[in-house]
């Protein structure tokens, strides 16, 4: 009975551990091979990915960032009004938007929209046997297909977050004017007094890490899903959930290092 319990406990701990180690190994391998392919990327494929993943997400990121900016004003405004320090609103909203809310929300939305779509695309390529066919023809699928997607997605998240920062701050200034009657110039002055380029740089640093995490999670989910129709849906789901786990873990680690 004790032996059985020990074996069951070993299985309960060992199986997830082995699964986690295998996933970490696959991610490291994919990251390493994509890094070595960085010097010889297919420029046209990279441009296509940047155009599709980046440019086509601009509208969604603009909406998300504008909502995030307004949200930060509503959230901080409640406390700032209670404490009677309206002049600090620019600092509070700017600090929260640049360092935390904007990078986090842009990454979450990007993981949902593009990460899931890319995972599904890779899974569909496997299900349609296009990836094995490329390998059979001697084409390195990592260099030709996966690395451009990985770097394209990572670059898109960084650029979209920079764009989102600008939209979020503009939306926050307008929300402060509309809701609390704080003039836009006063909001701007309060922000400039206490925030600097370092605050934006720290947020962008985070978004670069989030972009890599989203891209790696998406490609890994696409490659690991069963090569059939159902696997395509599974890959999309796994990509989103894993990306969010990584984003939040990286957020803790990078904020801890500030």
């Amino acid at each position, binding site marked *: 009975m004790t032996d059985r319990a020990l074996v069951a406990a070993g299985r309960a701990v060992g199986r997830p551990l082995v699964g986690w180690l295998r996933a970490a190994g696959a991610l490291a391998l994919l990251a390493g091979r994509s890094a070595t392919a960085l010097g010889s990327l297919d420029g046209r494929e990279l441009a296509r990915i940047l155009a599709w993943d980046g440019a086509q997400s601009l509208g969604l990121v603009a909406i998300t960032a504008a*909502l995030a900016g307004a949200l930060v004003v*509503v959230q901080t405004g409640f406390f700032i009004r209670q404490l009677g320090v309206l002049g600090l609103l620019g600092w509070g909203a700017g600090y929260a938007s640049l360092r935390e809310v904007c990078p986090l929300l842009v990454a979450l939305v990007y993981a949902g929209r593009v990460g*899931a779509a890319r995972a599904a695309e890779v899974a569909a390529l496997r299900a349609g046997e296009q990836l094995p066919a490329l390998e059979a023809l001697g084409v390195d699928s990592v260099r030709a297909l996966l690395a451009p997607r990985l770097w394209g997605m990572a670059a898109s998240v960084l650029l979209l977050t920079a764009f989102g920062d600008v939209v979020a701050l503009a939306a926050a200034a307008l929300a402060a004017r509309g809701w609390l009657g704080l003039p836009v110039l006063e909001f701007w002055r309060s922000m400039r007094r206490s925030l600097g380029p370092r605050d934006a740089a720290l947020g962008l640093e985070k978004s670069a890490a989030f972009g890599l995490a989203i891209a790696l999670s998406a490609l890994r989910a696409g490659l690991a899903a069963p090569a059939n129709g159902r696997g*395509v849906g599974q890959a*999309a789901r796994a990509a989103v*959930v894993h990306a969010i786990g990584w984003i939040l873990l990286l*957020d803790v680690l990078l904020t801890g290092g500030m």
Partner: protein
Amino acid sequence: MRGRPAPLVAFERPALAETARQLWSLGLGSLPIATLALAFFGVVLEKHAALQAQRALLDLDRIGPMFMKLLVREFAPIMAGSVLAARLGSATGAELAWMDASEQLDALSLYGARIGREVYLPRLLAGILGTLLVGVVGVLAASLAAGGFAQLTGTGRLSAFVSPRLVDGKDLALFWAKLGLDGASLPLAAFLAARRHGRGPRGIARAASTAVVWGVLCVLVWDILLGLAFA
């Protein structure tokens, strides 16, 4: 939606066994990742608070109770909603799109099953109850993680971060309203996404990703509207 607009499923009587199964799979199944997410977020917030307290020479123990109020009013609902938009939205969107693509919904209809009662309403109820559960557990996880981290790093005391003395009835009403509306919106967004995209493998993937994006946008919009209403 098999002939009925998504919000009208609320007028059906739910199948209890299916509701319990969905609550188990979507609500309790989302609990580990959502708890972890809120705990991580609690640590991030504590770190930011400590940085600013250090800059303004403030005592972090005085900020602690305010932290709990901020968590209940704002951060717990939005973080729980966003994480559930990803976990629950993608799972429900992909599952319904798959059921549609593989003609399981048609088969159920042919056998006389009421799709609203058997399929949609259990997921809607599981979404609402699951979100409420995740929100409550999330507040506990975030405040304990933030307080524990403050105690560990010597910047504050655990007891200050788990103190609810500044949380009033209005804060709690806002908390429940946000979570309830998020919980109802996420499955509805997934139903609509599945209905719009759910044909073929790529349609399933698009349904999953659209459900996540619509879910996150719903969470943000509710947060702003309710924040303004309860200001």
